[in-house]
Protein backbone atom coordinates (compact mmCIF):
# COMPACT_ATOMS: atom_id res chain seq x y z
CA UNK A 1 0.00 0.00 0.00
CA UNK A 2 1.51 3.38 -0.98
CA UNK A 3 2.21 5.75 1.91
CA UNK A 4 3.14 9.44 1.82
CA UNK A 5 5.24 10.88 4.62
CA UNK A 6 4.50 14.60 5.12
CA UNK A 7 7.34 15.80 7.33
CA UNK A 8 9.39 18.92 8.01
CA UNK A 9 12.79 17.33 8.50
CA UNK A 10 13.15 15.54 5.18
CA UNK A 11 16.58 14.05 6.04
CA UNK A 12 14.98 12.10 8.89
CA UNK A 13 12.27 10.80 6.53
CA UNK A 14 15.05 9.67 4.18
CA UNK A 15 16.98 8.04 7.04
CA UNK A 16 13.97 6.08 8.29
CA UNK A 17 13.23 4.84 4.77
CA UNK A 18 10.06 6.66 3.71
CA UNK A 19 9.48 6.26 -0.02
CA UNK A 20 7.16 9.16 -0.87
CA UNK A 21 8.11 12.31 1.06
CA UNK A 22 6.33 15.67 0.96
CA UNK A 23 8.22 18.47 2.79
CA UNK A 24 6.11 20.22 5.42
CA UNK A 25 6.18 23.79 6.80
CA UNK A 26 7.76 23.61 10.28
CA UNK A 27 8.00 21.16 13.16
CA UNK A 28 5.41 22.84 15.44
CA UNK A 29 3.00 23.36 12.50
CA UNK A 30 3.70 20.94 9.64
CA UNK A 31 0.50 21.60 7.70
CA UNK A 32 -0.07 25.29 8.40
CA UNK A 33 1.59 28.62 9.05
CA UNK A 34 0.21 30.80 11.86
CA UNK A 35 1.95 33.86 10.40
CA UNK A 36 -0.31 33.78 7.31
CA UNK A 37 -3.81 35.21 7.17
CA UNK A 38 -6.50 32.48 7.16
CA UNK A 39 -7.23 32.60 3.42
CA UNK A 40 -3.56 32.32 2.46
CA UNK A 41 -3.03 29.58 5.01
CA UNK A 42 -5.95 27.60 3.62
CA UNK A 43 -4.42 27.81 0.14
CA UNK A 44 -1.12 26.58 1.57
CA UNK A 45 -2.80 23.70 3.37
CA UNK A 46 -4.73 22.71 0.25
CA UNK A 47 -1.56 22.75 -1.87
CA UNK A 48 0.21 20.44 0.60
CA UNK A 49 -2.68 17.97 0.68
CA UNK A 50 -2.97 18.02 -3.12
CA UNK A 51 0.77 17.42 -3.44
CA UNK A 52 0.47 14.49 -1.04
CA UNK A 53 -2.40 13.01 -3.08
CA UNK A 54 -0.32 13.40 -6.23
CA UNK A 55 2.59 11.64 -4.53
CA UNK A 56 0.27 8.86 -3.42
CA UNK A 57 -0.76 8.14 -7.01
CA UNK A 58 2.68 8.52 -8.63
CA UNK A 59 4.67 5.44 -9.56
CA UNK A 60 8.21 5.63 -8.12
CA UNK A 61 11.38 3.56 -8.41
CA UNK A 62 13.35 4.94 -5.41
CA UNK A 63 12.88 7.21 -2.40
CA UNK A 64 11.36 10.38 -3.83
CA UNK A 65 10.99 13.86 -2.37
CA UNK A 66 8.08 15.65 -4.06
Amino acid at each position, binding site marked *: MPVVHIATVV*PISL*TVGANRIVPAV*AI*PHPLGNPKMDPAEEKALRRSLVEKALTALTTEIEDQTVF
Partner: protein
Amino acid sequence: MKLEIGNIHVKELAFGENTALSSGRVQINREELAGWIRELDHRIAEVKLDIALPGESTRIMPVKDVIEARCKAEGKGFMFPGRNPGDEAMVGEGRTHVLKGMAIVTTGKVVGFQEGIIDMSGPGAEYTPFSKTQNLVITCEVDDTCNQYDHEAILRRVGIETANRIGQLAMTATADETRTYETKPLIQQAAEYPNLPKVGYVYMLQSQGLMHDTYLYGVDVKTILPTLLYPTEVMDGAIMSGNCVSACDKNPSIVHQNSPVIHELYENHGIKYNFMGVIITNENVTLADKERSSNYVAKLAVQMGLDAVIISEEGFGNPDADLVMNCRKLEEAGIKTVLLTDEYAGQNGESQSLADSTPKGDAVITNGNANQVIHLPAMQRLIGHDTYADMIAGGWDGSLQADGSITAEIQVITGATNELGYHNLCAMAG
Protein backbone atom coordinates in the same frame (compact mmCIF):
# COMPACT_ATOMS: atom_id res chain seq x y z
CA MET B 1 40.43 37.57 25.59
CA LYS B 2 41.83 36.76 29.01
CA LEU B 3 39.64 36.03 32.01
CA GLU B 4 40.56 35.25 35.60
CA ILE B 5 38.01 33.16 37.45
CA GLY B 6 38.22 33.50 41.22
CA ASN B 7 36.23 30.85 43.08
CA ILE B 8 34.96 31.61 46.58
CA HIS B 9 33.94 28.32 48.20
CA VAL B 10 30.57 28.60 49.89
CA LYS B 11 30.79 26.45 53.00
CA GLU B 12 27.39 27.43 54.35
CA LEU B 13 24.20 28.94 52.94
CA ALA B 14 21.65 30.15 55.50
CA PHE B 15 18.96 32.72 56.19
CA GLY B 16 19.79 35.41 58.73
CA GLU B 17 19.43 39.05 59.72
CA ASN B 18 21.46 40.65 56.98
CA THR B 19 22.53 39.57 53.53
CA ALA B 20 26.29 39.12 53.61
CA LEU B 21 29.26 36.90 52.77
CA SER B 22 31.69 36.17 55.57
CA SER B 23 34.30 33.41 55.88
CA GLY B 24 32.60 31.29 53.23
CA ARG B 25 29.15 31.69 54.80
CA VAL B 26 26.47 33.24 52.56
CA GLN B 27 23.69 34.65 54.70
CA ILE B 28 20.48 35.96 53.18
CA ASN B 29 17.78 38.13 54.69
CA ARG B 30 14.79 36.16 53.51
CA GLU B 31 12.12 38.88 53.76
CA GLU B 32 14.27 41.59 52.23
CA LEU B 33 15.27 39.46 49.22
CA ALA B 34 11.72 38.19 48.67
CA GLY B 35 10.47 41.80 48.72
CA TRP B 36 13.15 42.84 46.22
CA ILE B 37 12.20 39.97 43.88
CA ARG B 38 8.51 40.93 44.08
CA GLU B 39 9.44 44.39 42.78
CA LEU B 40 11.11 42.97 39.67
CA ASP B 41 7.76 42.77 37.87
CA HIS B 42 4.32 44.09 38.80
CA ARG B 43 2.75 40.81 37.66
CA ILE B 44 4.54 38.75 40.32
CA ALA B 45 1.86 37.54 42.74
CA GLU B 46 3.86 35.50 45.22
CA VAL B 47 7.49 34.84 46.12
CA LYS B 48 8.74 32.26 48.59
CA LEU B 49 12.38 31.54 49.39
CA ASP B 50 13.75 28.25 50.68
CA ILE B 51 17.16 26.73 51.15
CA ALA B 52 17.62 23.12 50.01
CA LEU B 53 20.83 21.42 51.12
CA PRO B 54 22.52 18.21 49.93
CA GLY B 55 21.30 15.13 51.76
CA GLU B 56 17.98 16.62 52.87
CA SER B 57 14.71 14.82 52.21
CA THR B 58 13.63 17.58 49.84
CA ARG B 59 12.14 17.58 46.33
CA ILE B 60 12.13 20.69 44.12
CA MET B 61 9.75 20.73 41.14
CA PRO B 62 8.92 21.91 38.52
CA VAL B 63 12.41 23.40 38.10
CA LYS B 64 12.87 26.05 35.42
CA ASP B 65 16.50 27.18 35.68
CA VAL B 66 19.60 26.74 37.85
CA ILE B 67 22.03 29.66 37.95
CA GLU B 68 25.41 30.29 39.58
CA ALA B 69 25.94 33.59 41.44
CA ARG B 70 28.86 35.49 39.90
CA CYS B 71 30.02 39.09 39.52
CA LYS B 72 32.47 41.08 37.43
CA ALA B 73 35.18 42.02 39.93
CA GLU B 74 37.31 43.70 37.25
CA GLY B 75 36.73 44.47 33.59
CA LYS B 76 33.86 45.54 31.40
CA GLY B 77 30.33 44.31 31.33
CA PHE B 78 27.78 42.57 33.52
CA MET B 79 26.84 38.95 34.16
CA PHE B 80 24.24 37.78 31.61
CA PRO B 81 24.73 40.86 29.41
CA GLY B 82 22.45 42.33 26.78
CA ARG B 83 19.15 42.04 28.62
CA ASN B 84 18.85 45.54 30.01
CA PRO B 85 19.60 48.90 28.31
CA GLY B 86 23.19 49.86 29.12
CA ASP B 87 24.31 46.24 29.57
CA GLU B 88 25.53 45.76 26.00
CA ALA B 89 29.30 45.60 26.67
CA MET B 90 31.09 42.44 25.57
CA VAL B 91 32.10 40.14 28.44
CA GLY B 92 34.79 37.48 28.92
CA GLU B 93 37.73 39.69 29.97
CA GLY B 94 39.01 40.86 33.33
CA ARG B 95 38.21 39.06 36.56
CA THR B 96 35.05 37.23 37.59
CA HIS B 97 34.22 36.08 41.11
CA VAL B 98 32.13 32.95 41.58
CA LEU B 99 30.19 31.76 44.63
CA LYS B 100 31.13 28.09 44.18
CA GLY B 101 29.02 25.35 45.71
CA MET B 102 25.70 27.17 45.78
CA ALA B 103 23.04 27.79 43.12
CA ILE B 104 19.88 29.76 42.54
CA VAL B 105 16.98 27.48 41.51
CA THR B 106 13.67 28.79 40.16
CA THR B 107 10.37 26.96 40.51
CA GLY B 108 6.63 27.68 40.55
CA LYS B 109 3.58 26.55 38.63
CA VAL B 110 4.34 25.04 35.22
CA VAL B 111 4.60 27.47 32.34
CA GLY B 112 3.57 25.07 29.63
CA PHE B 113 3.72 21.38 30.17
CA GLN B 114 7.19 20.18 31.03
CA GLU B 115 9.84 21.15 33.58
CA GLY B 116 12.30 19.27 35.79
CA ILE B 117 12.78 17.61 39.20
CA ILE B 118 15.66 17.94 41.69
CA ASP B 119 15.76 15.52 44.65
CA MET B 120 18.31 16.45 47.33
CA SER B 121 18.63 12.83 48.55
CA GLY B 122 17.60 9.30 47.58
CA PRO B 123 17.99 7.60 44.18
CA GLY B 124 16.90 10.71 42.24
CA ALA B 125 19.71 12.74 43.77
CA GLU B 126 22.25 10.50 42.03
CA TYR B 127 20.87 11.60 38.67
CA THR B 128 21.09 15.38 39.11
CA PRO B 129 24.22 17.47 39.62
CA PHE B 130 22.10 19.96 41.56
CA SER B 131 21.61 17.65 44.55
CA LYS B 132 25.22 18.50 45.39
CA THR B 133 24.82 22.28 45.44
CA GLN B 134 23.43 24.34 48.31
CA ASN B 135 20.34 25.74 46.64
CA LEU B 136 18.54 29.00 47.22
CA VAL B 137 15.15 28.09 45.77
CA ILE B 138 12.77 30.79 44.55
CA THR B 139 9.15 29.72 44.25
CA CYS B 140 7.61 32.47 42.15
CA GLU B 141 3.99 32.71 40.98
CA VAL B 142 2.55 35.28 38.57
CA ASP B 143 -0.92 36.80 38.25
CA ASP B 144 -3.54 35.68 35.75
CA THR B 145 -2.89 38.54 33.32
CA CYS B 146 0.22 36.69 32.19
CA ASN B 147 0.19 34.42 29.19
CA GLN B 148 2.71 31.56 28.98
CA TYR B 149 5.33 33.73 27.28
CA ASP B 150 5.06 36.44 29.98
CA HIS B 151 5.21 33.75 32.67
CA GLU B 152 8.39 32.20 31.26
CA ALA B 153 10.08 35.59 30.76
CA ILE B 154 9.29 36.73 34.31
CA LEU B 155 10.60 33.54 35.93
CA ARG B 156 13.74 33.69 33.77
CA ARG B 157 14.34 37.30 34.83
CA VAL B 158 13.73 36.51 38.49
CA GLY B 159 16.37 33.77 38.47
CA ILE B 160 19.02 35.76 36.61
CA GLU B 161 18.53 39.02 38.56
CA THR B 162 18.61 37.19 41.89
CA ALA B 163 21.79 35.33 40.93
CA ASN B 164 23.39 38.62 39.91
CA ARG B 165 22.33 40.28 43.17
CA ILE B 166 23.69 37.46 45.33
CA GLY B 167 26.80 37.40 43.13
CA GLN B 168 27.56 40.99 44.15
CA LEU B 169 28.43 39.62 47.62
CA ALA B 170 31.57 38.15 46.06
CA MET B 171 32.82 41.46 44.63
CA THR B 172 35.47 42.19 47.30
CA ALA B 173 35.89 38.65 48.62
CA THR B 174 39.26 36.87 48.55
CA ALA B 175 39.16 33.93 46.16
CA ASP B 176 40.02 30.46 47.48
CA GLU B 177 41.42 29.59 44.05
CA THR B 178 42.05 31.46 40.83
CA ARG B 179 42.40 30.15 37.26
CA THR B 180 43.18 32.14 34.14
CA TYR B 181 41.74 31.30 30.73
CA GLU B 182 42.94 32.95 27.54
CA THR B 183 42.11 32.73 23.85
CA LYS B 184 43.76 35.14 21.44
CA PRO B 185 42.42 36.70 18.22
CA LEU B 186 42.27 34.01 15.50
CA ILE B 187 45.46 34.88 13.59
CA GLN B 188 47.53 35.18 16.78
CA GLN B 189 45.98 32.05 18.26
CA ALA B 190 46.79 30.03 15.13
CA ALA B 191 50.38 31.32 15.19
CA GLU B 192 50.91 30.52 18.89
CA TYR B 193 50.97 26.75 18.41
CA PRO B 194 51.62 26.26 14.68
CA ASN B 195 52.44 22.54 15.04
CA LEU B 196 49.33 21.54 16.98
CA PRO B 197 45.99 20.62 15.41
CA LYS B 198 43.48 23.47 15.50
CA VAL B 199 40.40 22.39 17.44
CA GLY B 200 37.07 24.21 17.76
CA TYR B 201 33.82 23.68 19.57
CA VAL B 202 30.42 23.76 17.84
CA TYR B 203 27.99 24.69 20.60
CA MET B 204 24.40 23.86 19.56
CA LEU B 205 21.65 25.71 21.42
CA GLN B 206 17.92 25.01 21.70
CA SER B 207 15.88 27.54 19.71
CA GLN B 208 12.42 26.13 19.07
CA GLY B 209 9.99 28.45 20.81
CA LEU B 210 8.47 28.71 24.27
CA MET B 211 10.48 26.79 26.90
CA HIS B 212 12.84 25.74 24.10
CA ASP B 213 14.76 29.01 23.66
CA THR B 214 18.25 30.26 24.50
CA TYR B 215 19.61 33.79 24.56
CA LEU B 216 23.01 35.08 23.39
CA TYR B 217 23.79 38.56 24.75
CA GLY B 218 20.04 38.85 25.25
CA VAL B 219 19.21 37.87 21.64
CA ASP B 220 16.91 34.92 20.96
CA VAL B 221 19.21 32.48 19.14
CA LYS B 222 16.49 31.32 16.76
CA THR B 223 17.03 34.71 15.08
CA ILE B 224 20.82 34.49 14.71
CA LEU B 225 23.09 33.09 12.07
CA PRO B 226 25.85 30.97 13.60
CA THR B 227 28.58 33.14 15.04
CA LEU B 228 31.92 33.07 16.84
CA LEU B 229 32.63 33.48 20.54
CA TYR B 230 35.73 33.58 22.65
CA PRO B 231 35.30 30.65 25.06
CA THR B 232 35.57 32.92 28.10
CA GLU B 233 32.43 34.86 27.14
CA VAL B 234 30.17 32.04 28.32
CA MET B 235 31.79 32.15 31.79
CA ASP B 236 30.32 35.65 32.16
CA GLY B 237 26.83 34.61 31.08
CA ALA B 238 26.92 35.40 27.35
CA ILE B 239 24.57 32.40 26.97
CA MET B 240 21.40 32.35 29.08
CA SER B 241 18.97 29.43 29.23
CA GLY B 242 15.28 29.83 28.47
CA ASN B 243 14.54 26.12 28.24
CA CYS B 244 13.94 23.18 30.54
CA VAL B 245 11.50 20.97 28.65
CA SER B 246 12.56 17.31 29.02
CA ALA B 247 14.86 18.63 31.71
CA CYS B 248 17.38 15.79 31.59
CA ASP B 249 19.19 17.13 28.53
CA LYS B 250 18.60 20.87 28.56
CA ASN B 251 21.36 23.17 29.72
CA PRO B 252 20.40 25.33 32.68
CA SER B 253 22.30 28.65 32.78
CA ILE B 254 24.80 27.24 35.34
CA VAL B 255 25.86 24.63 32.78
CA HIS B 256 26.69 27.35 30.26
CA GLN B 257 28.56 29.34 32.94
CA ASN B 258 30.67 26.23 33.67
CA SER B 259 30.46 24.83 30.14
CA PRO B 260 32.27 21.48 30.54
CA VAL B 261 33.50 21.11 26.96
CA ILE B 262 35.09 24.56 27.05
CA HIS B 263 36.76 23.96 30.41
CA GLU B 264 38.01 20.54 29.32
CA LEU B 265 39.34 21.91 26.01
CA TYR B 266 41.35 24.50 27.95
CA GLU B 267 42.97 21.68 29.99
CA ASN B 268 45.14 20.54 27.07
CA HIS B 269 45.17 23.81 25.12
CA GLY B 270 48.73 24.36 23.88
CA ILE B 271 49.72 20.80 24.82
CA LYS B 272 47.74 18.38 22.67
CA TYR B 273 45.93 20.88 20.41
CA ASN B 274 45.28 24.55 19.81
CA PHE B 275 41.79 25.46 21.07
CA MET B 276 40.78 28.14 18.59
CA GLY B 277 37.33 29.13 19.82
CA VAL B 278 33.62 28.48 19.80
CA ILE B 279 31.00 28.45 17.03
CA ILE B 280 27.51 29.07 18.41
CA THR B 281 24.63 27.65 16.40
CA ASN B 282 20.90 27.04 16.79
CA GLU B 283 18.34 24.24 16.35
CA ASN B 284 15.42 25.83 14.53
CA VAL B 285 12.10 24.32 13.48
CA THR B 286 12.24 24.58 9.69
CA LEU B 287 14.37 22.52 7.34
CA ALA B 288 15.61 25.68 5.59
CA ASP B 289 16.92 27.06 8.88
CA LYS B 290 18.59 23.75 9.73
CA GLU B 291 20.30 23.60 6.31
CA ARG B 292 21.33 27.28 6.45
CA SER B 293 22.73 27.11 9.97
CA SER B 294 24.69 23.90 9.37
CA ASN B 295 26.06 25.31 6.09
CA TYR B 296 27.11 28.40 8.01
CA VAL B 297 28.78 26.33 10.76
CA ALA B 298 30.84 24.45 8.18
CA LYS B 299 31.79 27.73 6.49
CA LEU B 300 32.91 29.34 9.76
CA ALA B 301 34.92 26.25 10.74
CA VAL B 302 36.77 26.34 7.40
CA GLN B 303 37.24 30.10 7.73
CA MET B 304 38.81 29.51 11.18
CA GLY B 305 41.18 26.92 9.70
CA LEU B 306 39.98 24.18 12.05
CA ASP B 307 41.26 20.62 11.77
CA ALA B 308 38.76 19.06 14.20
CA VAL B 309 35.70 20.02 16.22
CA ILE B 310 33.63 18.77 19.10
CA ILE B 311 29.89 19.20 18.46
CA SER B 312 27.45 19.15 21.38
CA GLU B 313 23.69 18.81 20.97
CA GLU B 314 21.05 20.28 23.26
CA GLY B 315 17.84 18.27 23.43
CA PHE B 316 16.78 15.39 21.20
CA GLY B 317 14.44 14.44 18.36
CA ASN B 318 14.60 16.91 15.50
CA PRO B 319 17.83 18.51 16.85
CA ASP B 320 19.37 15.11 16.03
CA ALA B 321 18.95 16.25 12.40
CA ASP B 322 20.93 19.44 13.14
CA LEU B 323 23.63 17.35 14.82
CA VAL B 324 23.85 15.02 11.85
CA MET B 325 23.91 17.90 9.34
CA ASN B 326 26.70 19.64 11.26
CA CYS B 327 28.66 16.38 11.40
CA ARG B 328 28.22 15.51 7.74
CA LYS B 329 28.98 18.97 6.38
CA LEU B 330 32.06 19.45 8.58
CA GLU B 331 33.41 16.01 7.66
CA GLU B 332 32.80 16.75 3.97
CA ALA B 333 34.84 19.93 4.47
CA GLY B 334 37.71 17.77 5.75
CA ILE B 335 37.22 18.59 9.44
CA LYS B 336 37.14 15.70 11.93
CA THR B 337 34.18 15.61 14.32
CA VAL B 338 33.28 14.13 17.69
CA LEU B 339 29.58 14.26 18.61
CA LEU B 340 28.15 14.62 22.13
CA THR B 341 24.54 13.54 22.56
CA ASP B 342 22.22 11.43 24.70
CA GLU B 343 19.77 8.67 23.76
CA TYR B 344 16.02 8.09 23.68
CA ALA B 345 16.36 4.36 23.19
CA GLY B 346 13.11 3.31 24.87
CA GLN B 347 12.54 2.11 28.42
CA ASN B 348 14.22 -1.22 27.61
CA GLY B 349 17.03 0.45 25.64
CA GLU B 350 16.23 -1.47 22.46
CA SER B 351 15.00 1.33 20.20
CA GLN B 352 16.92 3.55 17.80
CA SER B 353 18.78 6.08 19.95
CA LEU B 354 18.70 9.09 17.65
CA ALA B 355 16.13 10.30 15.12
CA ASP B 356 18.74 10.69 12.38
CA SER B 357 22.03 9.13 11.42
CA THR B 358 25.05 9.43 9.14
CA PRO B 359 27.98 7.10 8.39
CA LYS B 360 30.24 10.15 8.91
CA GLY B 361 29.33 10.14 12.61
CA ASP B 362 31.89 7.54 13.64
CA ALA B 363 32.98 9.17 16.93
CA VAL B 364 29.99 9.67 19.23
CA ILE B 365 29.76 10.02 23.01
CA THR B 366 26.46 9.33 24.74
CA ASN B 367 25.41 10.80 28.05
CA GLY B 368 22.80 8.19 28.90
CA ASN B 369 19.36 6.87 27.96
CA ALA B 370 16.69 9.38 28.97
CA ASN B 371 13.93 6.74 28.81
CA GLN B 372 15.36 4.73 31.72
CA VAL B 373 12.66 4.37 34.40
CA ILE B 374 13.29 5.36 38.01
CA HIS B 375 11.22 5.28 41.20
CA LEU B 376 11.59 8.43 43.31
CA PRO B 377 10.43 7.85 46.89
CA ALA B 378 8.40 10.56 48.61
CA MET B 379 10.37 13.33 50.30
CA GLN B 380 9.56 14.94 53.64
CA ARG B 381 9.60 18.40 52.14
CA LEU B 382 8.31 19.55 48.73
CA ILE B 383 9.33 22.92 47.30
CA GLY B 384 7.04 23.85 44.41
CA HIS B 385 4.28 21.59 43.12
CA ASP B 386 4.38 17.81 42.59
CA THR B 387 0.94 17.66 40.96
CA TYR B 388 2.61 18.10 37.59
CA ALA B 389 4.42 14.74 37.76
CA ASP B 390 1.82 13.14 35.49
CA MET B 391 2.21 15.74 32.75
CA ILE B 392 5.92 16.58 32.56
CA ALA B 393 7.93 14.91 29.81
CA GLY B 394 9.05 11.52 31.07
CA GLY B 395 5.99 11.16 33.31
CA TRP B 396 2.64 9.62 32.48
CA ASP B 397 -0.86 9.40 33.89
CA GLY B 398 -0.26 7.73 37.26
CA SER B 399 3.42 8.73 37.70
CA LEU B 400 2.57 10.50 40.95
CA GLN B 401 1.42 7.93 43.48
CA ALA B 402 -0.78 8.45 46.53
CA ASP B 403 2.18 8.23 48.92
CA GLY B 404 3.95 11.09 47.13
CA SER B 405 6.43 8.88 45.31
CA ILE B 406 6.96 9.28 41.57
CA THR B 407 7.71 6.66 38.92
CA ALA B 408 8.95 8.20 35.70
CA GLU B 409 11.73 8.20 33.14
CA ILE B 410 14.96 9.96 34.15
CA GLN B 411 13.96 12.44 31.45
CA VAL B 412 12.16 14.30 34.28
CA ILE B 413 15.34 14.90 36.30
CA THR B 414 17.14 18.19 35.72
CA GLY B 415 20.55 17.51 34.15
CA ALA B 416 20.38 13.68 34.24
CA THR B 417 21.63 13.11 30.68
CA ASN B 418 23.24 16.51 30.11
CA GLU B 419 24.84 16.37 26.68
CA LEU B 420 27.81 18.58 27.62
CA GLY B 421 28.87 15.91 30.12
CA TYR B 422 27.94 18.06 33.12
CA HIS B 423 26.84 15.00 35.10
CA ASN B 424 27.90 11.40 35.46
CA LEU B 425 26.07 9.20 32.92
CA CYS B 426 28.10 7.84 30.02
CA ALA B 427 28.47 4.60 28.12
CA MET B 428 31.71 2.80 29.01
CA ALA B 429 33.62 0.35 26.85
CA GLY B 430 32.87 -3.16 28.15
